[in-house]
């Protein structure tokens, strides 16, 4: 949008609402070798579908603590609230996420070999 630059290490999967994000998707991403997963949704109260983001918040917070319990390094899975008009904030979050994941190095913990790409 406003063309703020950020590193190209983020691939984007489009969903109608953050409530569509099944915790299993995040798990699958990590199994596939994603070094980090970022979930971004609208601010509480601004959900296009009213309360979708609130349900997502509960689910994903639980998932977060569960993943940490499983041994996943803190910082690989991140969630953020965002408004679609806040280009600069998205870039800030994207940059911060890429940085913190970069510091953690390549992910090893949940990667499944049979999914390894060449």
């Amino acid at each position: 949008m406003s063309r703020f630059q950020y590193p190209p290490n983020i691939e984007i999967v489009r969903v109608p609402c953050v409530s569509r994000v099944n915790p299993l998707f995040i798990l699958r991403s990590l199994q596939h070798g994603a070094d980090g997963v970022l979930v971004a949704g609208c601010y509480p109260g601004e959900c296009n579908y009213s309360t979708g983001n609130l349900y997502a918040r509960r689910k994903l917070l639980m998932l977060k603590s569960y993943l940490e319990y499983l041994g996943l390094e803190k910082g690989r899975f991140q969630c953020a609230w965002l408004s679609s008009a806040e280009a600069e904030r998205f870039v800030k979050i994207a940059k911060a996420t890429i940085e913190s994941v970069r510091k953690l190095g390549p992910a090893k913990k949940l990667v499944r070999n049979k999914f390894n790409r060449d």
Partner: protein
Amino acid sequence: MKKEDMKKVGAIAVIGGGVGGMQASLDLADSGFKVYLIDTKPSIGGMMSQLDKTFPTNDCAM
């Protein structure tokens, strides 16, 4: 032209493309009427597009 001779036209002109004009246009179009939305500016949105957030929900105005 006599008033009785004038045929009704199924189109409505909405003057002003701010949030009010937009809402009126959408309702009318959804109800089966042609709408001419007229504004002096090059884009719609009016004063509300200049607002950062709106009360009491603190929603982003855009």
